[in-house]
């Protein structure tokens, strides 16, 4: 049996923290307190913010996709063992987050969600956008993926198979988008520049060179 763990004992005896309308001052006070007590280091906070604002983001994933497009052997490794293949490029480690890469083809379209919270492949995409974490996307993409994708401007043909991946465990998914036509002569760097975050979540396709907009 899955235990009905002691939710009542654990949670009903403490007050839920009220959330203020503007958390700015409250967060400042909390940071000062944690720093003063030696629980967190202020330089570490700065470094963490800098890492996720400037170093870890969808450019990482785009380089993984471009490498897979350019090198069929890398692509085979990526689809067989994404954790190791992504570690090869230095964006994760074999001891880090377990990754799975799912491949879009003319006949199969993959899209990623976390219906229960906000799980997202940080090492390759950085932190998720607000829409990914919000109720409209999380609730609807499992029951009406085609309708949701149309809202993103992506109209899939009826005979395409749609696979929705709900990130309910500690596996993180990345979509390997289809390589667009007209990119045969592009090098990896130029290929990577075409790849968008949305395409790696599966809510868009990668547009051919020169095309504007997200889909």
């Amino acid at each position: 049996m899955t235990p009905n763990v002691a939710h009542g004992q654990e949670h009903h005896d403490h007050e839920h923290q009220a959330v203020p309308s503007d958390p700015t001052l409250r967060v400042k006070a909390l940071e000062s307190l944690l720093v003063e007590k030696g629980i967190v280091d202020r330089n570490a906070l700065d470094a963490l913010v800098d890492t996720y604002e400037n170093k870890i983001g969808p450019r990482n994933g785009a380089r993984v996709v471009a490498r897979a497009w350019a090198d069929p052997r890398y692509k085979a490794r990526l689809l067989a063992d994404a954790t190791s293949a992504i570690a090869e490029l230095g964006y994760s480690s074999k001891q880090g987050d377990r990754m799975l890469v799912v491949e879009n083809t003319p006949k199969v379209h993959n899209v990623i969600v976390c219906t229960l919270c906000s799980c997202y492949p940080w090492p390759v995409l950085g932190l998720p956008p607000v829409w990914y974490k919000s109720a409209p996307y999380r609730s609807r993409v499992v029951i009406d993926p085609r309708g949701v994708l149309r809202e993103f401007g992506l109209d899939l043909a009826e005979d395409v198979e749609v696979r929705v991946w709900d990130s309910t465990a500690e596996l993180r998914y990345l979509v390997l988008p289809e390589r667009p036509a007209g990119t045969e002569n592009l090098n990896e760097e130029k290929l990577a520049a075409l790849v968008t975050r949305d395409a790696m979540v599966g809510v868009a396709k990668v547009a051919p060179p020169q095309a504007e907009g997200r889909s």
Partner: protein
Amino acid sequence: MNGIHDMGGMQDMGPIQYEKNEPVFHARWESRVFAMFIAAGAWGRWNLDAFRHTREVLPPADYLRVSYYEQWLSGLLDLLVRRGLLTAHEIASGVPRPGEPKASPPLTADKIPATLPNRIHAHRDVGVLPRFQVGQRVRARNIHPTGHTRLPRYARGKVGTVYLDHGVYVFPDTNAHFLGEKPQHVYSVRFAARELWGAEAAPQDSVYVDAWDDYLEPA
């Protein structure tokens, strides 16, 4: 628990709110909450499952109303107090309890590029046998735990096929409540969209759910 967070399959939540050129954080305080959560988490006093549950127990109306990082702030304060890093009095007063020596933060700036702070550490290399095989038909159990669980309501009672065995992971239903890791196999289970949503769904479409051994039974 059958909370508002378990929203897969709900309708009428409105259109997708897409923001072009969205910043990583929308205000400085969001980035500080994010960083404080990671840095305080380095004390090892809690786990991600416990953190997820702090957000799930927000009153449903608040869960939908407040922003994402407000949920994080509420969860961080809850864990800091409940796991003994701060007292409620310290939070209210903003002043450390007198007479305590200053601690040494476990996460310092020099460790950050090397440690990849998002590492989840939920995989366990222990010899637990799988209860199911790839290709086997399984039913997600019709269970309604009142604590934390990662089996979404929309899958319960539905029949799917084991697509992959991911190996052994800690079990969120116990781990979130500090009741042990109970390591067990996690599988990717494919559910046909028609099994989940009925005849209106496209016959070839599907939803893949990662499910722990304890969530499944033979079908």
